[in-house]
């Protein structure tokens, strides 16, 4: 009776059969919905992965240009400004804001970069010499960081989508390979169980009706016999009328042969 996936523990009644049937129907609808969701997400996912691939290559180039502009700075300033920059950093000028984007019910974060123009930690860097290069380098790097932020959004979306798709696929598979077969099994079980009951009932009924027939037949026979006896009694009564001392017909003694 039970397959590889087993069945639910229910009493095989018509009511639970109805329940199971509606459950199966629900599972099938859910399955097709989830399947579609998973497909939509996967489509998006593939697009994002492709864009990550591209963006990562682009980042390589952008960062190279930025690094080069830093080389220009060190050429113009003629020294190392790294330490000074590190120490004068106080407030972030370049910040990001997170937004949400809804893809098939999944909230994907999207980073958006913005600059706090009021904050300017390095305005005087390179005052004596190299200031213009420093300025240009800042712009180059700001652009590079924008690319990086974009890439970061993609990557976060990638990680989240990856997770969500896994979950959705797991659900799809669970429905497809566990829930549906199990419900089907249960339905089958209930059906067969009900059939069995039907058959038993039928047999019982047959038995009952057989017995009834037998009883009826017996009763008929008795009735027949009774009737016969009655007829005989009537006849004997007639005879009794003629012969009041008629012997008991039900008596033990052998009836004397009546000779007509």
């Amino acid at each position: 009776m039970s397959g590889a996936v087993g069945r639910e523990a229910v009493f095989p009644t018509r009511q639970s059969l109805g329940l199971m049937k509606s459950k199966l129907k629900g599972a099938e609808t859910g399955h097709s919905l989830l399947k579609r969701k998973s497909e939509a997400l996967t489509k998006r996912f593939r697009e994002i992965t492709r864009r990550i691939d591209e963006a990562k290559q682009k980042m390589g180039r952008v960062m190279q240009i930025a690094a080069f502009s830093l080389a220009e700075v060190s050429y113009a300033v003629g020294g190392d400004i790294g330490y000074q920059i590190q120490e004068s950093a106080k407030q972030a000028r370049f910040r990001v804001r997170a937004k949400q984007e809804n893809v098939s019910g999944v909230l994907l974060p999207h980073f958006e970069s913005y600059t706090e123009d009021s904050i300017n930690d390095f305005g005087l860097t390179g005052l004596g010499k190299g200031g213009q290069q420093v300025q240009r380098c800042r712009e180059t790097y700001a652009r590079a960081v924008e690319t990086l932020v974009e890439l970061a959004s993609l990557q976060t979306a990638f990680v989240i989508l990856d997770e969500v798709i896994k979950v959705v696929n797991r659900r799809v598979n669970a429905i497809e390979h566990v829930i549906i077969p199990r419900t089907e099994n249960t339905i089958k079980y209930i059906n067969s169980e009900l059939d069995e009951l039907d058959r038993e009932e039928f047999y019982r009924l047959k038995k009952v009706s057989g017995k009834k027939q037998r009883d009826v037949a017996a009763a008929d026979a008795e009735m027949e016999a009774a009737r016969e006896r009655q007829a005989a009694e009537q006849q004997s009564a007639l005879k009794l009328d003629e012969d009041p001392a008629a012997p008991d017909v039900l008596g033990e003694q052998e009836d004397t042969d009546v000779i007509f």
Partner: protein
Amino acid sequence: MAASAVAYKDRQFLAVIGDEDSVTGLLLAGIGHVTDPPAAQRNFLVVDAKTETSTIEKAFENFTQERKDIAVLLINQHIAERIRHSVDSFADAFPAVLEIPSKDHPYDPEKDSVLKRVRRLFGE
């Protein structure tokens, strides 16, 4: 899973772990932020040949786990290489860990932990 609003609404800074040139450049772009004293914390770490791997690990932990105001962590690829295990096992969405090339180490897509996943998914 879909991130709840709490997970990222305070995240507005970028952090960086990198060599001196990368950090300098990114700071010039204006990402540097030092929190208010007394517990002044910087959101960048300069790594040179003398920096211990444990220091990098600690900074990585700090930026990824403890601090809740960091949206993106930039890390030089050759430095990520030194703490590859931590980077690879970090799979959360926030902060986004981004491996960036450095001046002396051009970008190698083969080593990027995210790109590795990308490639694997495409079955390459």
